[in-house]
């Protein structure tokens, strides 16, 4: 039995065509003396092969079933829903892009705005794009009474947005004095609705199929409308139904509903059978509102929303929304990149089983509380905007140092470079621990050979934000290059780069952490050790290529390397290997036959980066002997103009 999860195939049953036919040839002589099959056309052999094929097909089906059992190999979304549902992880459906919009009064007078719901509409804003060559309008709906994320909100507890507030409030009046501003949450998409008689809902086993699948499951509202009668000719809302995360919450006898998925993976609405307990309800109609969103292409950049159209018209109520459009400045956060502790949510398509596996690993076994080291690592990695991250505490820091100390493959000098030091993790103010007693197997006659008195009740995060690029959260803190010890500053060399994400980003992560009320530690961010590297080598194609084709192949190779070694795909403490580099390059293009990975004197992996000073470019080298578990190997190509990766010149023709 073999497992090959890279292709998503679990080999569970040992039965296949060849093994069955082997059995066939070996058992014929043991079962009968009269028949000695030799020819393939022998009817008995034909029958035997037919049965072997049939059994092989059954075996494939059993293997496919075994695939669906395990988290790493589950391939169908409907199975993933059930498997990850066991650990409380819900697969993402279409997600409408969300952002925070701020309205500032820049006039000299007080302005009264009303974001209320009226005329079957929210107040809306537009963004205009022609990214596909066709002019397109992206509409954002302003949700009344919503505001920016507060102190007690956290992204790690995935609230259903609609449960928290009355989004259909007819009034949301705000008086803005000059210079003041107000923030609201806006959701991308078009508000749609669908009504269905209660009696029909009951007939349909309490499920409601919607005439759309592009719906954001966190922005669905259900309300019951009583019919118009002679005494009361107007229809009116009778009950507002509350959205809950799962049918398990139907135990409370309240008007509740949730979004579930049928066996084909289509979203549907499930109504609590509490509906049976409501008297005189069958004549009512359930009205469902939802946001029909465009998923990933509904995301927008900074401050692109404009054309504010209020649902509450000034013509009907002159006291509100009677303002000069020029007097209101509209600004919005970008949601092309998710940010911690904000309502900015990137638009998404439904999660596949594979994506759900990767994302569910960041939720498994935490039960919404952070206690252990794996919990904290999962919390950090699932935070919006974190490509990859690592959390360690005093014990882990000590374990790392002990592992380095006991590693016989390292020299004393190499060990001293790798140890976690007071620059990486805070040292305790006072030493309460008798280390000679605790670490009795370590010679401490000349003091401890490595830093060990790390601060307790604190944890340090190392994270990479937005692929080392700047974001709306500002610029990362970088010390470049960092020289360990007392060596004089070396302009063209150093140990490594020290990197920390932007401060406002860190504040956002910590703000998401606080409401989880994990009281064991103080969380802070430390400087990670970053080691830029690039690849040098020659590619041999299967046949000689022209210079243009060679350039195209090299561009594909560099893109493949950048993707494979992108921070979102790598972990801290993970060094690139030559095997990986060769495999990525040789699989980047079908025309590549072989990648010459160099030699000891011409290494394929070079620890350094290209810098340009005063118009002169040079390679700044880093000392990879400092690489330890809080280090990250950053792939940084020297640029398209360089021939660090090239097609062997003999193989370029013309």
């Amino acid at each position: 039995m073999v497992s090959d999860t890279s292709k998503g195939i679990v080999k569970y049953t040992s039965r296949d065509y060849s093994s069955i036919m082997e059995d066939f040839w070996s058992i014929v002589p043991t079962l009968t003396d009269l028949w000695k099959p030799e020819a393939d056309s022998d009817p008995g052999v034909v029958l035997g092969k037919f049965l072997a094929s049939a059994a092989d097909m059954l075996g494939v089906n059993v293997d496919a079933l075994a695939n669906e059992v395990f988290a790493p190999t589950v391939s169908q979304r409907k199975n993933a829903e059930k498997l990850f549902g066991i650990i409380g992880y819900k697969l993402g459906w279409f997600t409408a892009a969300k952002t925070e919009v701020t309205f500032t009064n820049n006039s000299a007078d007080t302005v009264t705005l009303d974001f209320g719901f009226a005329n079957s509409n929210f107040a809306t804003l537009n963004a205009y794009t022609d990214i596909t060559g066709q002019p397109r309008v992206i509409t954002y709906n302003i949700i009344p009474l919503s505001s920016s994320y507060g102190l007690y909100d956290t992204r790690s507890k995935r609230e259903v947005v609609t449960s928290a507030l009355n989004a259909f409030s007819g009034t949301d009046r705000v008086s803005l004095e000059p210079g003041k501003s107000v923030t609201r949450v806006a959701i991308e998409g078009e508000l749609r609705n669908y009504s269905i008689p209660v009696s029909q809902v009951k007939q349909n086993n309490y499920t409601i199929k919607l005439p759309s699948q592009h719906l954001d499951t966190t922005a669905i509202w259900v309300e019951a409308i009583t019919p118009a009668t002679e005494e009361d000719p107007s229809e009116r809302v009778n009950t507002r139904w509350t959205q809950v995360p799962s049918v398990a919450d139907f135990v409370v006898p309240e008007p509740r509903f949730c979004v579930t998925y049928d066996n084909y993976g289509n979203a549907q609405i499930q109504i609590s059978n509490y509906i049976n307990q409501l008297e005189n309800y069958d004549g009512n109609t359930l009205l469902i509102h939802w946001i029909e969103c465009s998923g990933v292409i509904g995301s927008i950049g900074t401050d692109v929303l404009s054309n504010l159209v209020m649902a509450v018209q000034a013509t009907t109520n002159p006291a509100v929304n009677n303002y000069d459009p020029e007097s209101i400045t509209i600004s919005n956060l970008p949601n092309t990149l998710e940010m911690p502790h904000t309502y900015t949510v990137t638009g998404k398509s439904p999660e596949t089983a594979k994506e759900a596996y990767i994302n569910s690993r960041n939720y498994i076994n935490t039960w919404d509380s952070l206690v252990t080291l794996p919990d904290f690592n999962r919390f950090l990695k699932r935070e919006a905007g974190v490509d990859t991250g690592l959390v360690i505490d005093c014990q882990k820091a000590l374990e790392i140092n002990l592992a380095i100390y006991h590693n016989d493959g390292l020299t004393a000098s190499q060990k001293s470079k790798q140890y976690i030091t007071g620059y990486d993790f805070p040292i305790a103010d006072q030493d309460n621990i008798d280390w000679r007693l605790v670490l009795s197997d370590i010679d401490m006659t000349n003091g401890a050979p490595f830093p060990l008195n790390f601060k307790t009740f604190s944890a340090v995060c190392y994270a990479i934000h937005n692929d080392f690029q700047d974001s709306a959260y500002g610029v990362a803190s970088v010390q470049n290059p960092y020289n360990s010890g007392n060596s004089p500053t070396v302009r063209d060399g150093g140990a490594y780069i020290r990197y920390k994400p932007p401060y406002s980003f860190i504040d956002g992560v910590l703000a998401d952490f606080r409401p989880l009320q994990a009281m064991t530690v103080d969380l802070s961010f430390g400087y990670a050790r970053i080691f830029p590297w690039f690849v040098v080598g020659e590619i041999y194609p299967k046949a000689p290529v022209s210079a243009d084709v060679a350039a195209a192949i090299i561009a594909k190779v560099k893109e493949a390397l950048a993707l494979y070694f992108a921070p979102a795909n790598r972990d801290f403490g993970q060094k690139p290997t030559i095997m990986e580099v060769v495999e990525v390059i040789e699989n980047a293009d079908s025309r590549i036959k072989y990648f010459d990975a160099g030699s000891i004197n011409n290494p394929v992996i070079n620890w350094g980066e290209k810098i340009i000073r005063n118009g002169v470019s040079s390679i700044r080298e880093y000392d990879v002997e400092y690489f330890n578990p809080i280090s990250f190997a950053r792939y940084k190509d020297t640029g398209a103009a360089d021939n660090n990766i090239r097609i062997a010149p003999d193989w370029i023709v013309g």
Partner: protein
Amino acid sequence: MNIRNIPVPDIYTDSQDFRFFLDWFSMCLEKTQYDTESLLDLYDPLRCPEELLWMLADTMGYRYDDRLCPAFNRLVLLYFMSMIYNRGSRDGMILAADVNVAQFVIQQRAEEDDILSNRLEDTSIPVNSANVTSDLETGTIDVVYFSDRIPADACIEYVRPLGMYVFQRAGVRFDARTKIAIDARLTDTRDMAMSFGPTFVGHYRRDDYARLQRPGDDPRDPVWYRNSVAEGETDPSIHPGTRALYSLQLANGDEVVRALVGDIFSLGYNPQAAGQTMPDIDISDPPNWNLRYDSTTDARITPVASDSDLAVATIKPAQSTSVIAPVPKVNDVMTELGDPLSS
């Protein structure tokens, strides 16, 4: 249903050719039938195929530990969710440490027998074989394994609360009130044929006690069946209750015995050196003898969360009228069916 049992008219089974194909069909399909019927064993840590065990571990959120044999990984997976539920607590730490200690026996069997490297026969863990104390002042947790060596740590990281040091060491630490003895005695030669086999540190359960009372019944728990090479055939004459009793004494894992003999019972084990002196007892601070009848003293010397919490006191202060008429803190006699078991 067995494929071979699918009925066919007898007349056909007279034909050798036909019999061959009936046999051939069943051979072809029996393994597939077995695999299909056993598919849900993939979810069972004890039965999941060895090659797929790491995926079951990953599904549960545990990282398969390559340093240790599959049988031990199966044991960890059996107890893993209990650890997760108790993570961050002393109970969770003790459970993780106890599971760690179980690796000695499992690894030893794995080295002796390839099959036992994969198959987990005994699903019990050595309860009470680790002592866990914490000190919030210094931010440290001490884990003392009741053993002469430190096991490879496969579980602690999943339960330890973040931010505190965890120091693991091998040794013996137990409540001073625990009575521990190692007997040396002459063996009656007539008893030498009787073998208890190697007894394991193990779970003990209520019905193990019950069997002591009623030796006539013998519904033995499979844990206590012996099948080691040394013992040969299982000996039905071994009294299961007695075996359970021995397991209660904890002094039966090799590592446990060595830890005890070395650290606790070494005094007087060999002749003392002539120059050795023993320290004087400081009588200025006499030992705080407490016979557990004085609730005030009991409460004072017992670390409890609050004054009203007399969890370890052995008398009931409310019912005891004076110190000379203590009412012991045991359950009341159950006079009628349905009376509360504790009060």
